[in-house]
Structure formats: structure tokens, C-alpha cells
């Protein structure tokens, strides 16, 4: 075999092993060794050209790796271990959304802003307070996504929770508060701000959701897995307390 051909096989082998490490952990544990073994068989077969190994690497990345992750994350055929109706994933989102709504009501009807406006120091605080007010949905969003994922075990569930929270937050806080203070001269500016806020909120929520997915992997990181399980247990306990009539079939079950 020629030098470049051997080098090509070697590099394809290295990259392929890296690609195998990227599969979702349940799949990787079950089939990772078989996949590597099969790839080694192909790489040592002189009838298989090095070019084909690269094509295979690309095809596997784009077909099976992506599909396995999407299936795992969005509740595919078999990789999802825990299935809970999507509605329950929206609960944390609604709770967080109402938290934000409460903040808005406090400012809107208890005239906190007006009280602050009465003194120079108060005006200073009032001018600064919109920053944490805008940040509050962001801070609430990450936990919304995080708990949404823990409840549903899918990123889709987390994003749904985040979407609900974001919808409520983005339509109330920046729109009302900033319009009242004339920070935006036109409605278009306000809508633009709301859209940006919603996008940022969803991004932060998806970070929280992604963190939950990583923590939920379990055995690879025992401490994080333990924390995730504890949080899940807490969420389960809270939910069973609030809704004692939950059907047993909706509880988490390990399919594999």
C-alpha cells in the first residue's frame, strides 16, 4: 500500500474513533466497540480504498450520528429512556413566566418606579433598575430550560418550557416598562426589542436545557449525574404533591 494511502487510512481511523465518541452515551456503550471493530475490518481490507473510508466517515457523521442525537434529544424511536407527556415540561415554563409577570405587576401597579423617581438617588436607581429587570427573564430562563429537560428528558421539552416562559416574559417586561419610560420612540423599536429579548431568552434557556442534557447523561460524570437525579427526584416529589392523581404510567421508566 502506498504512503499517502496508508496515511489516509490512519487519519480516517483516528477521525472515525473521534466520531464514535460523539454518539449518545447509551448507544456508544452498546455499539461503540462493534462500530470500531467493523471500521478496523474495513480499514484493513485492501479491496476498500482509503477514499471510501472518508466517504463512510462523512456519511456516518451526517446520517447516523446526527440522527441518533436528534432521536435522543427530540424523543426518537428508541434512545429516549424517560417519556413524560410534553405538557408537564411546560409547567416550569409557566411558573417562571408567572414569576416575571409578578415582577411586572409590582412595577406597574405599585408604582415602584414612580416612588423611586421622587429622589435623585431613586431616579439613579430607577434608571439602572431596568437592567436587572431585563436580566430577570434571562436568569429565569436557564432554570426553565434546565427543569424542562429534567422533567421531559428531551431538549424539545426544555425548549418548550423556555418558549412558554419567554413568550410571557418578552411580551410584558421590556415592552411595557421601556415604552412607559419612553426609551423607544416608536412601536417598531419596542417590537424589535421584544423580539431580541425573546431570542436571547430562548438562547439562555437552550443553554440551561443543554446543561441538563449533559448532566442527565449520568454515569460518565457521577457527581453531576447524582445532582441531576436529586433534582429530578425533587421535581417528581413536588409534582406528585401538587397533582396526586398522576397516572403511574407517566412516571419515569428505564426502557433499556
Amino acid at each position, binding site marked *: 500500500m502506498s504512503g499517502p494511502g496508508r496515511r489516509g487510512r490512519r487519519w480516517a481511523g483516528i477521525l*472515525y474513533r473521534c*466520531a*464514535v465518541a460523539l*454518539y449518545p452515551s447509551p*448507544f456508544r456503550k*452498546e*455499539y461503540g*466497540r*462493534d*462500530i*470500531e*471493530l*467493523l*471500521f478496523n*475490518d*474495513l480499514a484493513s481490507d485492501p479491496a476498500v480504498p482509503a477514499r*471510501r473510508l472518508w*466517504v*463512510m*466517515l462523512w*456519511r*456516518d*457523521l451526517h*446520517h*447516523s*450520528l446526527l*440522527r*441518533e442525537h436528534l432521536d435522543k434529544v427530540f424523543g426518537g*424511536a*428508541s434512545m429516549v429512556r424517560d417519556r413524560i407527556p410534553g405538557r408537564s415540561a411546560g409547567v416550569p415554563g409557566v411558573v417562571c413566566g408567572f414569576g416575571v409577570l409578578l415582577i411586572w405587576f409590582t412595577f406597574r401597579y405599585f408604582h415602584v418606579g414612580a416612588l423611586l423617581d421622587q429622589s435623585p438617588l431613586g431616579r439613579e436607581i430607577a434608571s439602572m433598575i431596568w437592567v436587572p429587570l431585563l436580566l430577570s427573564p434571562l436568569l429565569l430562563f436557564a432554570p426553565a430550560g434546565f427543569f424542562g429537560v429534567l422533567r421531559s428528558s428531551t431538549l424539545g421539552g426544555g425548549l418548550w418550557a423556555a418558549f412558554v416562559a419567554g413568550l410571557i416574559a418578552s411580551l410584558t417586561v421590556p415592552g411595557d416598562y421601556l415604552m412607559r419610560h419612553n426609551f423607544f420612540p416608536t412601536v417598531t423599536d419596542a417590537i424589535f426589542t421584544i423580539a431580541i429579548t425573546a431570542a436571547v431568552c430562548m438562547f439562555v434557556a437552550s443553554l440551561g436545557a443543554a446543561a441538563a442534557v449533559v448532566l442527565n447523561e449520568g454515569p460518565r460524570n457521577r457527581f453531576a449525574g447524582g445532582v441531576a437525579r436529586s433534582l429530578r427526584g425533587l421535581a417528581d416529589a413536588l409534582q406528585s404533591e401538587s397533582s396526586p392523581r398522576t397516572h403511574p404510567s407517566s412516571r419515569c421508566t428505564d426502557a433499556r
Partner: protein
Amino acid sequence: VSLTAPVFYILLSLSFKDRHGYEILKDVQASSADRVRLGPGTLYTTLKRLLDAGLITELEGRSRPDQDDPRRRYYRLSGRGRADLKAELSRMKDALELAGARRPRESS
């Protein structure tokens, strides 16, 4: 429901004998006249789905323990898989007969 090409060729390959991953891969390539080329990852994700669907089963023991790598896993077509494959072959046969009976319209 028609089977996808990789699923069809994998079931077809296992309908002749029990095989391990590499054998399946080679047989699929040969029987599809090089049209279906599976990578190892694609093969095992498909095998996993077929196992989950109950169309194939994994063998506990190896057919040739003296010759084979003990790390290899063998797969066998299940009764349900055989029935699905038979249905697919019958559907293909019907489609071929229909296509043969109806002369396709010539494009002018």
C-alpha cells in the same frame, strides 16, 4: 409500509443465514450491486432500530466459535422480520407485474 433500502437489504441478507456486522455490510453491498453502501455507524443504528422493532434478534452464542472473533455479535431474522420481508417482496413483485402489464406512455 415499504421498507427503506438499507433495511430491506439487511433483512434480505439475514434471511439467508445469521451474520455479524461486517458480513451484513459486505452482503448488502454485493446484493445491491454497490448501490447501498452502509458505514459502520449507519449499519449499527439501523440494526438497533430493527432489534427494537423486533424484526431481528441478537444471537447469544456464535455459529463458529472456533473461527470467529469472540467480540463479534451475530444477528438473526425474526419471524416478524421474515413476514415483513415477505410482504415487501410481494409488494415489489406486484409493482413489477403492474409495471409490466401497463406499457409506460412514450414521451414524444
